[in-house]
């Protein structure tokens, strides 16, 4: 159930940013989540419904999730390659010396807000 902790982090950061930007409410939130972060979409949305209810600025806000597929770079042969959650070895030279470039993101990309202009 780390989705609850993740969503509570999202709500906290978004509400604060929206307040600073003078928002009257948050319309939508875009997240970037790597496949390797092991986040369950259903649990995420369940937590989203529960926690946005409690924050007036966030009530009714839509949740959009961009899935980020993993990719790594080989430090031996410089091959850049996409992979699943299990195979992190370089497919070109077999090296284990690889570094993850993306795929473990837990980020808030942006929020759409409504402001009350005079």
């Amino acid at each position, binding site marked *: *159930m*780390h989705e609850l*902790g*993740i969503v509570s*982090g*999202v709500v*906290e*950061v*978004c509400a604060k*940013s*929206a307040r600073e*930007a003078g928002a*009257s409410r948050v*319309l939508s939130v875009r*997240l970037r989540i790597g496949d*390797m*972060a*092991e986040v369950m979409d259903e649990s995420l949305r369940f937590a989203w419904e529960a926690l946005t209810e409690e924050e007036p600025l966030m009530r009714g806000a839509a949740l959009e999730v961009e899935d980020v597929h993993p990719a790594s770079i080989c430090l031996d042969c410089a091959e850049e390659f996409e992979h699943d*959650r*299990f*195979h*992190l*070895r370089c497919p070109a030279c077999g090296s*284990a*010396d690889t570094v993850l470039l993306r795929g473990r993101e*837990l*980020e*808030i*990309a*942006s*929020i*759409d*807000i*409504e*402001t*009350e*202009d005079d």
Partner: protein
Amino acid sequence: MAEKTVSLNEPILSRNERLAAELRQRFAEHKVYVVNVLSSPGSGKTSTILATNERLRSRYRAAVIEGDIASDVDAVTMKEAGIPAVQINTGGLCHLEGNMIKQAVDALDQGVGLDAIDVIFIENVGNLVCPVDFDLGENLSIMILSVPEGDDKPVKYPGIFQHAGAVLLNKVDVAPAFDFDLDAYNAVLNELNPRAPRFSVSATHGEGMGAWCAWLSEQIEAARA
């Protein structure tokens, strides 16, 4: 009424990451090496920490931060073994977070003092999913799997095995009683986390503990250099 998009590009757990960075700096200032110990409940975190300390105590002064949902059973065990220990009760939360570690480190600092500690073992809450997301400022995360849990755990919980800087297979003394397929286990980890060294140990009987402790000492020395 107007609508606009505010670009954030901020880590969701940014508050924890800030705390982790502060902790990391504090540990470095006091030359404290921190090991975050991860596993499911009952795989031998406590006995591995005790056995590791037993072998390294002549070289390093250890302290332990215990994370549990409830009770102080593990902290009492550590104190009985002569190791300074602070118990954190998460009250239901399935992992430790930076703010809890900060409080525990403050308590250790007020107690024995951080300069009197070389290594802190953080015994995380037994869980194979959630602790991965929460950086605690550690130098090293280790994953302990025990033989009775089965060889398929890396397939079922790839994230935590991928995250680990070393993987210990514990309770190898009871391997004959379980059909743990060591080849299958190694084959998965060869792809999932080929860089992390693997140690087969029995924390309570001592098998393999020498190799693990020698490697850990090397890491501690490398961090100090």
